[in-house]
């Protein structure tokens, strides 16, 4: 099993105010730290027109972090497809890929905020065809040096990815039971489409987990995880009801939604984290993105949790098989545009 870290949003929030330039400086520092600890990737996230400077342009930021590292992959979780000009973003992705030995994973998503669609002059109803058009542009670009992923949290979405042979990144808010169902749907769609790409495309999942033996820190970390979802009340995000879980509507019932997400959070000793990772692996996930960039928590705290995970959790999971290896997908992409 392999591990990345995320989501780096570059925000200056009401809970963690900071100069925007410091957020970007810390991104580069965090990338260097992640690489030194053996994490394979750092995942960024995109939104527009939000009070806290949530990063609206992921590839320049990714480029900066890649310039400071040599092995770490930078990934987008997710690049908002309907808001991009296909030529512009494809050229940008190509430039990042060729500069940095292909260390770019482009996770692409639909988006959900009307203000963003309206601000960029795109109709919400057009978001699926726009995403498909962008995927085609990205996948067909000759000589590309990046991987393409899809972000999805519904069966329809993961089936769309599977049918194209695309790897997927699943939200941290989803209970493991639903993750298991989505993994199965993704694989079934891939098989039904004739196994595009040859190898089963990768399944990655964001998971909320924090390593600590300190009881006081445990309570604080849980509290910060809850706080990290309040932003979604402002963004208007939600998770539709699925297998084993009810709807999470952060915009209209934030406390209930956060209570639902809190059940997915694992904070504790290395053996507790190990158990949680084994459950996720058993559900069919072969790559986990630790969701530890929470609400702009202090950099030193994030680094400490990363260090503990790398030192005390990763070695325990050496026996967990990884279904697909990310590095091989560069030379032989598992994607296939249908």
């Amino acid at each position, binding site marked *: 099993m392999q591990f990345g870290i995320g989501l780096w949003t*570059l925000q200056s929030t009401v809970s963690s105010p900071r100069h925007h330039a410091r957020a970007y400086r810390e991104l580069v520092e965090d990338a260097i730290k992640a690489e030194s600890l053996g994490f394979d990737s750092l995942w960024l996230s995109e939104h527009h027109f939000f009070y806290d400077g949530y990063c609206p342009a992921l590839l320049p930021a990714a480029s900066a972090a890649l310039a400071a590292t040599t092995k770490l992959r930078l990934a987008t979780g997710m690049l908002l497809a309907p808001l991009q000009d296909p030529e512009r973003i494809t050229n940008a992705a190509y430039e990042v890929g060729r500069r940095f030995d292909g260390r770019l994973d482009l996770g692409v998503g639909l988006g959900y905020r009307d203000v963003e669609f*309206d601000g960029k002059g795109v109709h919400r109803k057009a978001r699926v065809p726009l995403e498909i058009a962008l995927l085609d542009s990205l996948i067909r670009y000759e000589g590309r040096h990046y991987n393409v992923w899809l972000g999805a949290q519904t069966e329809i979405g993961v089936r769309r990815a599977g049918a194209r042979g695309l790897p997927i990144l699943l939200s941290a808010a989803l209970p493991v039971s639903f993750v298991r169902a989505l993994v199965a749907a993704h694989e079934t769609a891939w098989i039904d489409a004739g196994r595009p790409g040859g190898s089963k495309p990768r399944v990655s999942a964001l998971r909320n987990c924090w390593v600590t033996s300190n009881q006081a820190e445990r309570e604080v970390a849980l509290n910060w995880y809850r706080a990290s979802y309040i932003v979604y009340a402002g963004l208007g995000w939600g998770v539709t009801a699925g297998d084993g879980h009810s709807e999470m509507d952060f915009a209209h019932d934030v406390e209930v939604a956060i209570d639902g997400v809190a059940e997915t959070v694992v904070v504790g000793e290395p053996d507790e984290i190990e158990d949680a990772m084994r459950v996720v692996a058993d559900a069919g996930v072969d790559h986990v993105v630790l969701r530890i960039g929470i609400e702009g928590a202090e950099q030193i705290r994030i680094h400490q949790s990363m260090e503990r995970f790398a030192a005390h959790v990763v070695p325990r999971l050496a026996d967990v098989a990884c279904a697909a290896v990310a590095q091989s997908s560069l030379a032989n992409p598992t994607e296939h545009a249908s």
Partner: protein
Amino acid sequence: MRIGLDLPTDLTPSVETAWVHTADWLGLFGVTIGGQRGAECVRAGALSTTTSTIRLAVQLRIGADNPVTLAEEVSIVDNLSNGRVIVLADISSLDTSAAREDVGVLRQALSNRPIQHHGKRWTIPAGLEGHDAPEAVIASPPPTQIAVPIWLVGFEADSSWDDGVSQVVTDPAGIDAGQFVQVGRTPLTGDLNLDRQVVRQWAAAGTTHLLVAPPAAWEPADLAIVARHLVPEVAMVAFPHVIVSAPEPLPWPTDSAATVHR
């Protein structure tokens, strides 16, 4: 007058990086960074991490892309570089009216003010049916700088752009010494005496920032000629050439640090 580096836009990453790092080390004020549509801010983002003081003059083609999108990318690079971005706005594909609209929206987006724009080319926000969206948007994050400089290239001579926007001229006759910032762009010849005359001419016209393109035969290490001979030439009136006609000091031995700390 300050001197910066004007690079071709089609350099490979390793060649570009060598030029930019050398220029940064030598203290040139800025360097132009271009590239394919979409690649410009990615290149600048990478160079922001590996440079410390040089300004990144990002050349953007204005017209094909939503100016708010361009502003967002510029702002990210400005935050990455701790406030070192200049926008070189290439308006050559637009007529004056269209250029004014696009550059105007770009400036408004970089100002961190609410945008409510209804123009011939852009309506921001679009106010599309069925959207639950506000009547204005603010591009965020704001840049680090108080005001990101916007320098126009590819324009027809037009004196009515306001003080917030400078025009990059290719002839010293186009410099207006009454303006606070005046930008020129010129190739170097590689002949030291000729190049001294060139930079003195631009300085005499009232240029504040001169972007110089290196001769095709130069390597990045040749930028030392600019730093040693051309920058001082216009850093004072009647620069005494005896300063540079003396031999340069010897290079330090590679193990000198160990010697010092023995």
